[in-house]
């Protein structure tokens, strides 16, 4: 039911974790926003596009049994809120993992996967999901 332009517009953030930094206060935000919610008008003209590394730790998680139709082949799947190294938190699926091994604090990084497709003849949407990384990964 979604439209191609609506997804396409967000590709820089969904493919490459582009966020924004307020050079007035130094805070990072994801996804990008027009003005800083703390500095308000002072941030106009001072917002700088930044690319987040896509690395962080699980802040909370849940094993989803009644989930999105698009993910029915992966039921049950792990959904997590991840705190990225730069500060912002994001929500996404954790994949290629053993659900019982995923805990609050587990280190993860982003990878590109299919998010959904608009039926067998529709556009395929890609975006970030998380995979666990070893504690001592470079």
């Amino acid at each position: 039911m979604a439209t191609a332009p609506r997804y396409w517009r967000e590709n820089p953030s969904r493919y490459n974790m582009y966020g924004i930094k307020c050079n007035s206060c130094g805070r990072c935000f994801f996804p990008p926003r027009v003005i800083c919610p703390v500095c308000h008008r002072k941030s106009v003209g001072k917002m700088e596009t930044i690319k987040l590394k896509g690395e962080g730790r699980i802040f909370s998680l849940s094993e989803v049994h009644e989930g999105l139709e698009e993910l029915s082949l992966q039921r049950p799947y792990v959904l997590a809120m991840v705190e990225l190294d730069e500060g912002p938190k994001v929500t996404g699926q954790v994949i290629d993992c053993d659900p019982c091994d995923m805990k609050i604090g587990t280190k993860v990084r982003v990878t590109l996967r299919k998010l959904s497709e608009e039926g067998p003849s529709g556009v395929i949407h890609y975006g970030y999901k998380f995979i666990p990384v070893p504690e001592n990964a470079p």
Partner: protein
Amino acid sequence: MKVGIVSYGAYVPRYRITPDEIGKVWGVDGKAMGKGLMIFSKSVPSPDEDTITIAVESARNMMRRCDVHPKDIGALYVGSESHPYAVKPSGTIVAEAIEASPDLMVADFEFACKAGTAAIQTCMGLVGAGLVKYGVAIGADTSQGAPGDALEYSASAGGAAFLIGSEKIIATLDHTYSYTTDTPDFWRREGQMYPRHGGRFTGEPAYFKHVMSGAKGLMERNKTAPKDYTHAVFHQPNGKFPTRVAKQLGFTDGQVKTGLVVPHIGNTYSGAVPLGLSAILDEAKPGDRIFAVAYGSGAGSDAFDITVTEEMKDFRRDRAPTVKELIANPKFLDYATYAKFRGKIILGSE
């Protein structure tokens, strides 16, 4: 101007299934099948993976290992026989995902299992002619075999990407030669889900004729012999064909050992020689010579003569996983889960 590989990266999905598990469902002795094919397990893509996500991860691993700025990439080609779209290139999405867009040439390639190496040849030409500074050639696939067909035991998923340039080359692409004929050994018509093949016709008149001709053609033109090479990799639809053709050409088991990845991950089609070459580059030392021959049904072979340079000593291979590391932590599936993942079960519709 010398042209060669500046960096490379690979990716193999985590899931596996054994020939034994497949055989159980179809009343076939899967273990014996696997033994005959020299395939002990094949890789299975997750429902959220496809040729594009595999190509992206391979290309990102390739970029992690070098310091080339993505905007210096002038061309990017993805070769596959399982592009997610029949019309809309995989390459544009990969280019965006590695931030090479928008100033570059992109197209998708198809030539059965040698689409990835055809892309390497194209990049060699563009770089050599000075038309681009760097070109990216990717071979990736998530191929399917029809349920119960012999190909179901081997068709798997994986890929590798190569950054071709003329500076900081870790392996020069010294020569390339291709042998091409119209031979209908294996094909898939537009709109069909599974390929068809000519059974035993895929052997002597197809794989062996073209790989032998490609190999001999390259060695004749450049006056080399098997003993000149440290490593050799041939297209690997199973473990038997490349082992046999290597022997027939005069290569030893020791030469083909490193590049033979099919026994644990199956036939990754357009990813087969690229992954085998990656496995070799994972261990190659400066001065090593590599002989590579890819085969694509339809039919043709692409042969390469490659020399590893001193630059390999400083190559940051550790910034991305080696092929060995990629396949180290597999998760085995039963046939039902495999069939679900691969879309072989007819689902209801809204």
